[in-house]
C-alpha cells in the first residue's frame, strides 16, 4: 500500500471513539479518530481532572462537504462506582473557533461491568444554519474476561441515527483494546465503515 493510500487510511481511522472515553485521568492526553458515512474527524483532548476534558476536533463533514473544527468541552456529570460496575453520564459541547454559530451540545451515558456494556449518546448540532441530531445506542458483551494487560474483546450491536439521514441503522461492531490502544470497527451497507481508534498518552 503506497503512502498516498496509507495516510488517508490512517487519518480516516484516526478520525475516533469520541464517545467512549470522553474524559481521561488527570494530565491524560487522548487522541481519537472516527470515520463513518457522515464524517471523518480527529479529536485530541486533555483532561486536567477526571471531571472534564478540553479538546480540539477537526472534522470533514461528508454531508455538507465542508471542513471545520470544534473546541470541545466535556464534563462528567455523574459517575457511580460499585464493586462490579461503573456508570457514567457526561455533558458534551463544542463550538467552532471560526464561526460560533457552528456548535453542538449533547449527552453521553454508559454503564459497564467486565462482561456487559450499554451506552447511549445524543448530540444536537448546528452547522451553517442547519440543525441536526446524532444519536446512538450500543450494547455489548465480552466473550471472555481478559486480565490486566491482555487483549480485551467486545462484541457489540450499535443502532444510530442522524436526522439528516433520517433512518436508524443497526449493525454489529467489534471492539478491541490492549494497554492504551483501542480499536472499534463496524460495517453495514448503509453507513459503510464505522471505525474508531483511540490512543491515550
Amino acid at each position, binding site marked *: 500500500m503506497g503512502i498516498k493510500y496509507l495516510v488517508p487510511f490512517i487519518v480516516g481511522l484516526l478520525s475516533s471513539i469520541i464517545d467512549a472515553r470522553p474524559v481521561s485521568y488527570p494530565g491524560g492526553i487522548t487522541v481519537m479518530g472516527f470515520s463513518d458515512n457522515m464524517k471523518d474527524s480527529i479529536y485530541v483532548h486533555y483532561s486536567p481532572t477526571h471531571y472534564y476534558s478540553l479538546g480540539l476536533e477537526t472534522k470533514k463533514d461528508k454531508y455538507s462537504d465542508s471542513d471545520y473544527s470544534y473546541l470541545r468541552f466535556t464534563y462528567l456529570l455523574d459517575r457511580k462506582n460499585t464493586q*462490579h460496575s*461503573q456508570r457514567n453520564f457526561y455533558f458534551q459541547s463544542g463550538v467552532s473557533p471560526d464561526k460560533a454559530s457552528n456548535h453542538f451540545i449533547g449527552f453521553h451515558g454508559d454503564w459497564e461491568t*467486565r462482561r456487559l456494556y450499554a451506552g447511549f449518546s445524543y448530540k444536537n448540532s448546528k452547522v451553517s444554519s442547519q440543525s441536526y441530531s446524532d444519536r446512538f*445506542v450500543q450494547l455489548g458483551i465480552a466473550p471472555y474476561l481478559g486480565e490486566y494487560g491482555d487483549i480485551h474483546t467486545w462484541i457489540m450491536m450499535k*443502532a444510530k441515527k442522524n436526522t439528516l439521514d433520517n433512518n436508524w441503522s443497526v449493525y454489529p461492531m467489534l471492539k478491541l483494546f490492549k494497554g492504551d490502544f483501542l480499536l472499534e470497527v463496524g460495517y453495514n451497507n448503509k453507513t459503510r465503515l464505522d471505525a474508531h481508534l483511540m490512543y*491515550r498518552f
Partner: protein
Amino acid sequence: MKNYLFLLCLLMVNLGAVSDEPKMQATEHKHEGHMNHEEHAGHMNHEGHMDHEGHMDHQHHSHKDHANETMIDGKDLQVDPDRFNKFTKNLSSCNVAVVSVTGMVCDFCARGIEKTFKKDKSVLAIDVDLAKGKVLVAYEKSRAIDFDEIKNKILINGQNATDLEILEI
C-alpha cells in the same frame, strides 16, 4: 426496534444508578509484622524474607501461600495467588499495598491508576487484578504508606479505594 434498544440502554444505565453504593467507609488493615503471628509461622523463609529477625528457621513458602492466607484480623487476603506470585517474584524488602477498588471494571480505565502511581519514585511495581478489584502497589520499605494518599490517587482517576492491606515482603 431501535426505540426498544434505546429504552433498554437507558434502563441498564439506570440500573447502575440504583445499584449498591460504593463502600466509602474505608478501613485500613496494616499487616506489618503479621508474619510473626503464630498462624503465619512457616511463611517467612521465602527469599527476601530471610532478613526478618527470628524467621530463619521457617520452611520455604511461596507467595501463593501469602496470597491465600488469613490475616491476623481474620480477613482473607483476596488476591489472585498466581497474579500475586508473579507480581512479587522479583521483589524483596518492600511493602506491598493491596488496595480494594470499586469501579475498576476495565483494563482501559485502570491504566490511569498505574500511570498515577508510577509517578511516585518510591513505587517499585504496580499491578491490577481486575477480577478481584485490587490494585497491588509495591513501595520501598522506608516509604510510609498512607491510605488517604492512596485513596486520593485512586479517586482522581475516577474510582474509589475502599480498603487497604499492607504486606511485608
